[in-house]
């Protein structure tokens, strides 16, 4: 059986979605969309990865040089130096992308930092063969210098792919947006989404404000909290919210979410 309720809202959204979206046909008939990463996000992820691999390779090289200098020198060190210092450093630089993409299933540290990941055209995780083919074509994408061909391809193709992606059938997409797209966001959403008298939208607003509490300025979060409490808080209290301190506002918002848990516990005890 597929979706019980047709996802007309999603379909409406899809029809008005920008072209740089990957629409994944779910195996159940419920489709979902992912934003395709543009050349900017790609370059950002690549630069992070490039810095990382250069740093690691140079770190290995310098550590090897120091160690070799400390232990000795001479002809007998030549072969050992090549094998223990130079070759591993070159391998780190050359095999950084293919190895990490395979091990991390389509996400290098740079992509993770930039909030991107590789998917197949059906939204799945790319296999080892696809990832290796993708990396083989770096030879063309990186030519003649600074990934010029790859960047040009990204600018010119509808789905912002380089030649390696075309060959492997992969796409670089933006991971679900941070506010609620992450599993941590879901955890938070589910935390409040239990037994609550607040409407789900209202509870989400409170939850979101609490999540962003430390990132907001005191005046700003105070104003937001007071506005929310004025609408949502039905409990009688001695003093009006306008006079509450920052800590009191925070505590009250938390109570607002957890109060109904207490209500439920009370109801269970009564039951």
């Amino acid at each position, binding site marked *: 059986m597929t979706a019980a309720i047709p996802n007309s809202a999603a379909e409406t959204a899809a029809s008005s979605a920008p072209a740089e979206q990957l629409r994944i046909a*779910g*195996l159940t008939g*419920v489709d979902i969309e992912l934003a395709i990463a543009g050349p900017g996000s790609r370059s950002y992820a690549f630069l992070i990865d490039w810095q990382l691999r250069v740093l690691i390779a140079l770190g290995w090289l310098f550590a090897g040089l120091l160690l070799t200098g400390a232990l000795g020198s001479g002809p007998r060190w030549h*072969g050992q130096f090549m*094998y223990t210092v130079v070759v591993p450093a070159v391998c780190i630089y050359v095999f950084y992308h293919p190895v990490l993409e395979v091990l991390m299933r389509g996400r290098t540290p740079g992509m993770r930092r930039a909030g991107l990941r590789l998917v197949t055209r059906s939204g799945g995780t790319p296999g080892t063969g696809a990832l290796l083919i993708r990396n083989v*074509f770096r*030879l063309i994408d990186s030519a003649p210098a600074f990934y010029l061909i790859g960047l040009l391809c990204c600018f010119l193709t509808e789905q912002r792919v380089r030649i390696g992606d075309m060959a*492997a059938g992969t796409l670089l997409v933006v991971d679900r947006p941070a506010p609620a*797209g992450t*599993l941590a966001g879901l955890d938070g959403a589910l935390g409040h989404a239990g037994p609550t008298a607040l409407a789900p939208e209202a509870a989400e607003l409170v939850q979101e404000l609490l999540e962003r509490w430390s990132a907001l300025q005191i005046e700003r979060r105070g104003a937001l909290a007071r506005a929310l409490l004025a609408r949502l808080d039905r409990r009688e209290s001695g003093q009006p919210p306008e006079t509450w301190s920052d800590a009191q506002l925070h505590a009250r918002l938390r109570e607002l979410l957890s109060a109904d848990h207490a209500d439920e516990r009370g109801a269970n005890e009564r039951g």
Partner: protein
Amino acid sequence: MSAGAAASGAQRDAAAWVKARSATWSEWLAAARAAPARSAGAQLDVAAAQRYVEQYRALARDLATARQLLPGSRTTAALEALYLQAHAQIDRAPRWSPTALLTLLRDEIPAIVRALRPTILWIAALMIVSAAAGWWLISTYPNLISLIASSQMIDDVEHERLWTQDLLNVVPSSVLSVAILSNNIAVTLTVFCSGIFLGLGVCYFVALNGLMLGAAFAFTHQHGLAMGLLKFVLAHGPVELSVICIAGAAGIALGESLLRPTLPSRRESFERTARRVGRVLLACALLLVVCGCIEGFISPDPRVPMSVRVVIGLGYWCVMLLFLSGRLLAWTRRGEDPAP
């Protein structure tokens, strides 16, 4: 009923539905968190996999409902993230296993090479013709060697010394092998990838290699060193040149997929061809690793006689033919169920 009352009723429905489903979602969340660890470790058994698929279907139903009841909400977005993760877990290629690797080397790569055989022969012919052209060119216009060889190499040959003679005095064999095999693999990959330029890139690289080979032999022949060069090349050359031809044929297939797509779009055709013929590169890399060892340890060693080089060169070439035809690993098929 007023619009406000209807909206309030819808909100109550949504809240009740979220309340009813939240416990299940918590369970799914825990399962999703365990998924990455599972994908890196043990595989699911059949019953667990079926449970996972059922959960995916239920998640789809909940997502569709959430889109109706709570459009644009964090709960819907979070369910979408969970749904995407489940989708990625289900829709993924099987993991590599020794059996899959054996099947690739024994059955799939030979099948691809069989399909590419006419192209491989054409590429080999192009290389031979280019080599002959290179020989003729340098024999007729000896001064043109400066376009092909470095001044150091020309100087060495003019003083009746091959540039290959001192290789072992410069770097140890092992280091030389690694340098040679990595260079050869890079050349092979470049030849393959250059097929994207409608196959013209492959023709350029193969013709250039043939031309240089023929020119080098013609130049050394003029100074009485052709046998020395042949002695150097004989042990590793046959397989090395064959591998370039195979990679070139795979590259031509890439170009052909763009010129004459067999699927509705060129992109799809290119993707399918690249994924299929790209497997040949694994065989090429394996063959080149051994070639690199031969070129690092045996080819530059003056103590190895010509007869041994011939045996090694031809023997390894025969092993390559057996490998690429699937006969080398055919013995592993014993005991397996015959194909239906």
